[in-house]
Structures are given as structure tokens and as C-alpha cells.
């Protein structure tokens, strides 16, 4: 009886899933009985994968566990974060410096984990800033942003931060073409075709992760959308999707959708390296910021660089080749073998799959149909492996499971479609709720995917969660893809707007030498205080430096007098704890910055300009012990010209016996 009932339910569910596969309406339909069990991670147990999810217009990177969907941490990257003091304390302010000055916000779209031999290696995650073009490197031992490099000659760094298989390069392709930095940008907008250029940047990544722009390739003025590196046999090549090959400068919605085919641009970066060695690069003036956080001084520095090496794709004919690709391609994804390049024409009703071997033959035999702005255009059929017919509407992104299957998201028809890379046959499809953009399979764009889960990142969640006013949560959905059929097992809301995400086995990261605290003996901060005996308050004109320490549960000093109106006070606070998970916070009344959140062994600085005469309390903001609520102090602010001397103490400034 029960069996029959289950079967009936299943039939109904499958039937309705089929019916609604084009436009799912009912949120509950796609879930089957054992979903909860598959996504359940018991209290106290660890997740199987880390999931690093772009925070979109929040500018940050969020870290979730898979398959539970539990949020562990939001790592500040391109936006200030008062919770962690990021961008507010003196040490991290330089991280957000650019050629435009301090920029407190950006839009982090894509994430890419570092790789060795084409496999995710658990060292770093890179993220792109889509508005003021930059690339950030996040260290996975500390889960903090360690480096940010600005990308010159660019606007809207979208096809980024994708990497080569040994993390030799992380790339940046400009979404907007613009006049080059060293040319006059004060030109009529409708001179786009003449004056606007698209630059691709190859940023070298050193052994310790340090980034440096090796060269840029100047290309025709189009919109570069997404990219992926070749791997295995295609290592040495990079592939970029291009749209707006119409070179429109207004109403792109219509004017950039005219042509039947735009392009995937194949870039031979090994060839480009040869040209750089041969001195073909032109050193060109520009201006960009390079910001590095130093782990031993706990302080970031920002340097403005003034030139960049540029190769001209028109002059150097054998670096770049255009492959025609239907209708404004978006995703540009390379399968684990490196042989197949999937172009997702977002307005097309098919998915073209190109063959790297065929592309090489076509280039060798000059099977070109002409040139686009000086760049050879390979014949479509000559590079084509085949087309996936009628896969769905609005293909966007593809990831791989390492078992010969590809999974493509469809925004318009709101579904994920599984297909066989070689035979190009559609094998399965599941609806998403709703309008999926990106997707992630752990290691899914590397040589070694872990094809157990697929996460779809959705743009629309109307009716999915309890309403929260006009703005609703964006969300992720986890599918079990270990069987033939994809199975929805969990929904979870995300911060900001999730674009790309990456995931890796938990052990790879938690066993990478996670930092538990900063060693006091290695702390080289210029204002470190190693022990309470060294605490002091030093006046130098209007500048007052407070060398303060904290430990469970008091600050030293915790009574400070002699501060005057007009002073600029710097609290340099060293957390003397040497154990995991014991940060202290610091907040002072009326401060126009944010709190400090000081990790064990770390020194952090808050700048404060007292705005009135009086008594200013400060306290620890991060619950640290049973006496946390006692962890507090006072600062007395006197008028300008007052003769109250500087004094500071802890535990000695006791009331006089006769005091009223």
C-alpha cells in the first residue's frame, strides 16, 4: 500500500516536473524523499567540501560547507567590512587603494582557486572586481585578502580571474572596451570603432602568490565576457568569449545582438611570452595600484605603478584567432581533457562545442574565412566538434564531472542540463528555482572534478523563502549528481548575488597549515607592544600614539588622561593571546570608523579624532571570557590648551580616600 502510494507520488512529481521543466512554478515539486538525509551534516560533524562563493555586489567572498549549505565566513575583499575593521583600520586601508584613490566598494563576480598540474591545490582563491578593474588573492591559510592588483587600460574586469593549470597566470579581460589609458579619452562616444580598444591582461603569479602584470594584449574594441585556460593538450592557450562584435556604443540590448555569430577568441599565450622575450612588447605609460598585505608587519602597503608592457594583436598575427560562435557567447568552458571548448551563446538555441585538435589543424592549414579587425577568423565548421541541439533556452555556463559529462545552466528556461561531451546527447535536465546563472561542481573547471555535487546559483527566488520586503534573497541549490539523474537535495540563501563559485575537498584546505594565531615573537608591526610593561602613550605634537595590549579580560592601559581636542589619536592594540579562537574587539564611543577585531598575536590600529570634551569609554566587542563585560576603560578628553598631562595606567588609578 505504502509502496503504491510512493510510486503514485513519484509519478505525479516526475510528471509535473516534466510539465513545468520550461518554466517551473511550484517550488516543492523537484524534491524527493531522501534529500534531507543527503544534505544533512550532523551537529559537530564537518562538511565534505568548502564552497567559495562570489558575493557579487556585496564585493565579498562567502565560504559555505557542502553539502550542508552552512555559512562559515564572509571574507572581505573589495568592500569595507566594519565587522572586521577591514578598510577601516590603518593596516588594511591601503588594500582598497586604486589609481582613483580609496574605493570602498566593488562587485566581485568570479572566483578561481589556484591549481597545480590542473588540480585544485588549496592555496589561494582569486576574485575579480568588476567595476574598478582589479584582481584579489585570498590566502586560504588565514582566509584573508592578501593582495589586490588594479588592471589598467580596462573597464569592467569581467572575464577574470581565470588561471592556467599551474597558476602561471591569472587573466583579466575588459568587459567594456575603452580608449587606452595613454590616449585621449575625451572623444565623442560614437567614435567607438576608431578609438576604443579591448585589453587582455596576463598577470604573473609567483611562488608565494605575488601578482605582477606580465603583459597586456591590445585587441579590437569588443566586449570580453568570460574565459578559461586550456589544460593538458591545450595548455598554453586561453579562450575568451566576445560579444558586441557589432561594436555598438548605445542600446546594446538591441544593437549588440545583430550578428548571427560573435566569437570565441583563442589566445596562444606561450607565443605571446615568446614575443615578450623577443622584445616585441611596448612599454606604455599608465597608472595602477598594487596592494600587498605583509603578514609579519600585519600591514598593507599600496604602490602606484606607472607602465605596462603591451603586445598588439593586429601586428603579431599568430597570437590571437577568432572562432565564430553563435549569438553573444557568455560562458567559455574547457573540459577536463583540454580537448573541448564549450561556447554558450546566451541568445542561441544550441551549444557549439569546439575541438582543440581541429582548431590547431585549421590554424595550420589556414582554414580562415577572413579577418576581424586584423585578427584571422577560423572557419566555424573547421574548429567545430559538434552542436548540442535543442538543449534549452539561454545557455550560460558549463562545468564538468570528470566522467565525460557536461552540465550547462539555462537562464531563460531555468534549468540545468546534463549532456555527453562526445556524443552531444542530452542525458538529463532538472528545473531550478529560478533563472539559474552560474553553477559549480567541486573542481568542475579543473582537470580533476569531484563529480558528487552540483550547485546552481539562482538569480530569482520569488516565492522560495519567507518574503523580506522588495529585495529577496538570492540562492543556491545543491544537486546530487553521483547517479544518472540529478537530484535536488537542498536550497540555501546566499549573501549578495552569487556568480561563479569554486569548491574543493575539505581536507585539502583544513590540512593546508591553517594559521591559528599570529606568533608574538614574529610580530614585526612598527607599533607592536610585546607585554604590558611596554605599554605607553606618546605625544608628538597633535599626534598621540597609544601602545595598548589586551588579554582576557582587560586592556592595558585602561585609564588614559591628557588627550586634548584637536589631537589625532592612534590606538595600536596588540592582542597578547597565543591561542586559537581568542580575538578581542575594540570600540570607542563616537569613533567615525569601525571596531577593531584583533586576532591573537596581531596588532591593529584605530585612528580617532575626539569631537568633544568629555569622557569616552571603550570596551571589548568580542565575547572573550566570563569577565568580558568587565573588559573596558576610559579616556578623558580635555579642551585644547588644557594643562592635564598625559597619564596612563591599569589597576593603579584608584580613588583618593577623601574624594567626594
Amino acid at each position, binding site marked *: 500500500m505504502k509502496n503504491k502510494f510512493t510510486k503514485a507520488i513519484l509519478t505525479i512529481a516526475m510528471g509535473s516536473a516534466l510539465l513545468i521543466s520550461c518554466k517551473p512554478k511550484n517550488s516543492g515539486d523537484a524534491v524527493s524523499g531522501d534529500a534531507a538525509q543527503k544534505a544533512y*551534516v*550532523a551537529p*559537530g*560533524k*564537518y*562538511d*565534505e567540501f568548502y564552497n567559495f562563493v562570489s558575493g557579487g555586489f556585496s564585493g565579498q567572498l562567502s565560504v559555505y560547507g557542502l553539502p550542508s549549505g552552512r555559512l562559515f565566513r564572509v571574507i572581505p575583499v573589495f568592500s569595507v567590512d566594519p565587522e572586521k575593521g577591514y578598510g577601516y583600520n590603518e593596516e588594511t586601508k591601503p588594500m582598497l587603494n586604486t589609481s582613483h584613490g580609496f574605493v570602498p566598494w566593488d562587485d566581485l563576480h568570479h572566483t578561481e582557486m589556484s591549481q597545480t598540474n590542473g588540480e585544485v591545490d588549496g592555496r589561494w582563491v582569486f576574485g575579480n572586481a568588476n567595476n574598478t578593474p582589479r584582481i584579489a588573492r585570498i590566502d586560504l591559510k588565514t582566509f584573508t585578502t592578501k593582495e589586490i592588483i588594479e588592471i589598467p587600460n580596462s573597464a569592467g574586469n569581467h572575464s577574470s580571474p581565470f588561471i592556467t593549470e599551474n597558476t602561471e597566470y591569472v587573466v583579466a579581460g575588459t568587459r567594456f572596451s575603452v580608449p587606452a589609458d595613454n590616449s585621449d579619452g575625451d572623444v565623442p562616444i560614437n567614435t567607438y570603432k576608431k578609438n576604443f580598444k579591448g585589453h587582455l591582461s596576463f598577470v604573473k603569479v609567483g611562488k608565494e602568490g605575488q601578482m605582477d602584470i606580465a603583459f597586456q594584449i591590445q585587441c579590437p574594441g569588443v566586449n570580453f565576457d568570460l574565459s578559461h585556460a586550456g589544460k593538458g593538450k591545450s595548455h598554453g592557450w586561453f579562450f575568451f568569449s566576445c560579444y558586441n562584435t557589432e561594436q555598438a556604443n548605445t542600446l546594446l540590448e538591441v544593437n549588440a545582438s545583430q550578428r548571427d555569430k560573435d566569437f570565441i577568441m583563442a589566445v596562444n599565450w606561450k607565443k605571446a611570452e615568446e614575443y615578450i622575450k623577443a622584445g616585441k612588447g611596448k612599454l606604455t605609460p599608465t597608472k595602477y595600484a598594487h596592494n600587498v598585505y605583509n603578514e609579519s608587519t600585519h600591514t598593507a602597503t599600496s604602490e602606484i605603478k606607472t607602465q605596462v608592457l603591451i603586445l598588439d594583436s593586429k601586428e603579431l598575427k599568430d597570437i590571437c584567432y577568432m572562432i565564430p560562435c553563435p549569438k553573444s557567447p557568455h560562458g567559455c568552458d574547457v573540459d577536463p581533457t583540454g580537448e573541448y571548448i564549450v561556447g554558450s551563446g546566451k541568445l542561441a538555441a544550441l551549444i557549439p562545442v569546439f575541438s582543440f585538435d581541429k582548431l590547431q589543424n585549421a590554424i595550420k592549414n589556414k582554414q580562415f574565412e577572413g579577418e576581424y579587425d586584423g585578427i584571422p577568423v577560423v572557419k566555424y565548421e573547421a574548429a567545430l566538434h559538434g552542436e548540442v541541439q535543442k538543449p534549452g533556452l539561454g545557455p550560460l555556463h558549463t562545468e564538468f564531472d570528470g566522467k565525460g559529462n557536461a552540465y550547462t545552466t539555462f537562464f531563460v528556461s531555468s534549468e540545468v542540463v546534463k549532456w555527453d561531451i562526445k556524443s552531444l546527447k542530452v542525458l538529463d535536465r532538472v528545473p531550478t528555482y529560478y533563472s539559474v546563472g552560474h553553477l559549480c561542481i567541486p573542481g568542475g573547471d579543473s582537470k580533476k572534478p569531484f563529480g558528487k555535487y552540483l550547485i546552481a546559483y539562482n538569480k530569482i527566488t520569488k516565492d522560495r523563502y519567507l518574503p523580506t520586503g522588495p529585495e529577496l534573497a538570492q540562492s543556491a541549490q545543491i544537486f546530487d549528481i553521483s547517479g544518472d539523474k540529478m537530484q535536488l537535495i537542498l536550497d540555501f540563501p546566499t549573501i549578495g548575488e552569487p556568480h561563479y563559485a569554486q569548491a574543493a*575537498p*575539505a*581536507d585539502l584546505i583544513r590540512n593546508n597549515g591553517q594559521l591559528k*594565531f599570529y*606568533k*608574538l*615573537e614574529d610580530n614585526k608591526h612598527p607599533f607592536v607592544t*610585546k*607585554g*604590558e*610593561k*611596554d605599554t605607553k602613550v606618546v605625544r608628538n605634537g597633535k599626534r598621540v600614539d597609544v601602545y595598548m*595590549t589586551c*588579554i*582576557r*579580560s*582587560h586592556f*592595558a592601559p585602561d585609564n588614559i588622561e591628557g588627550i586634548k581636542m584637536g589631537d589625532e589619536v592612534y590606538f595600536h592594540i596588540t592582542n*597578547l*593571546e*597565543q*591561542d586559537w579562537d*581568542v580575538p578581542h574587539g575594540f570600540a570607542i564611543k563616537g569613533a567615525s570608523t569601525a571596531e577593531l577585531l584583533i586576532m591573537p598575536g596581531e596588532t591593529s590600529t584605530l585612528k580617532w579624532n575626539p569631537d568633544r570634551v568629555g569622557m569616552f569609554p571603550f570596551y571589548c566587542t568580542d565575547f572573550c*571570557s*566570563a*569577565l568580558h563585560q568587565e573588559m573596558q576603560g576610559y579616556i578623558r578628553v580635555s579642551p585644547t590648551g588644557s594643562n592635564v598631562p598625559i597619564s596612563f595606567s591599569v*589597576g593603579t588609578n584608584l580613588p583618593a580616600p577623601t574624594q567626594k
Partner: protein
Amino acid sequence: MYKLSLFIAVGLLFVSCGKKEQSGDDFSKPTTEEATATKADPSTYDPNRGEGKYDKVDLGATLDQAMAAEGEKVAGVKCTSCHKITDERLVGPGWHGVTSRHQPQWIMNFITNPDPMINKDPKVQAQLEICLVRMPNQGLNDTEARSILEYMRKIDGVK
């Protein structure tokens, strides 16, 4: 009968899944260091020795002045925010007399490995009721811990 065997088969599936998860990758288990720190049998706890890696500490007949000076330096960074060298309590108890209250191995174990001893040692638990703050692990290495012990001996009048 059929139903019964189906039930068993399903049951087996569950069991085998569960086993696989436990014996396979250890992503579902907490780290080993945390496990050993809390799982030791309290009945085997030796309140004279404490818990940690030190069984016996060789003390010199006289004070090693250089080592004690080094210990004073380390203590200045990591200890004296909370401990006075008199018998007066600050956050934690004053250090004066500590080397006569405890065996040297107890002190070495406690200052390098405080957490399990705070959970088990009767004297430490009595202190915790007074101080209310668990002594933090300050990440002392062997040399630092030994030099602090020498400094404590100096405070207690060893020449």
C-alpha cells in the same frame, strides 16, 4: 517474507552507507588533537604530575641566572598581564611560592597544556572558582616554558 527481506536489504544499505562514511575520509570527524585532549580517563589523572608531556624536570642545585633572565623576558610578553610576581592575585594567582605549591613537572605541564588540566585538576578548578578566567594557552615552546620555571624559582628565592 518478501517484505521482511526487503526491509533487511534496505537496512543493510543504510548500515553500509554509515560504515563507509565513518571509515572513509575523515571529513566528518573532528581533528585528533581535540579528541585526545578531552577523552582521557579522569581516573588516571595524577594531580602531582598534571597532564602533558613532562614526566620529570631536572632542576639544578643552584639557579641558572641566564635562563631565569630569559624567562623574565618571555613572561613579560606572555604572562605578566595576568600574574604578579608577589602573592597578590591579578587576573590569575600571584607567582610567589608557586614552586613550593607544585612539582616542577606539574608547572611545566600546566603552562604548556592548560586546557585539559583546567578540566581535571582539583587545585586548578578551585582557582578557577576564584579567578573565573580560564588560563589561556600562550603557545610556549619547551625552552620558553623551562626558562619561565627558572624565573619562578628565582622569584621564590633560589640562588
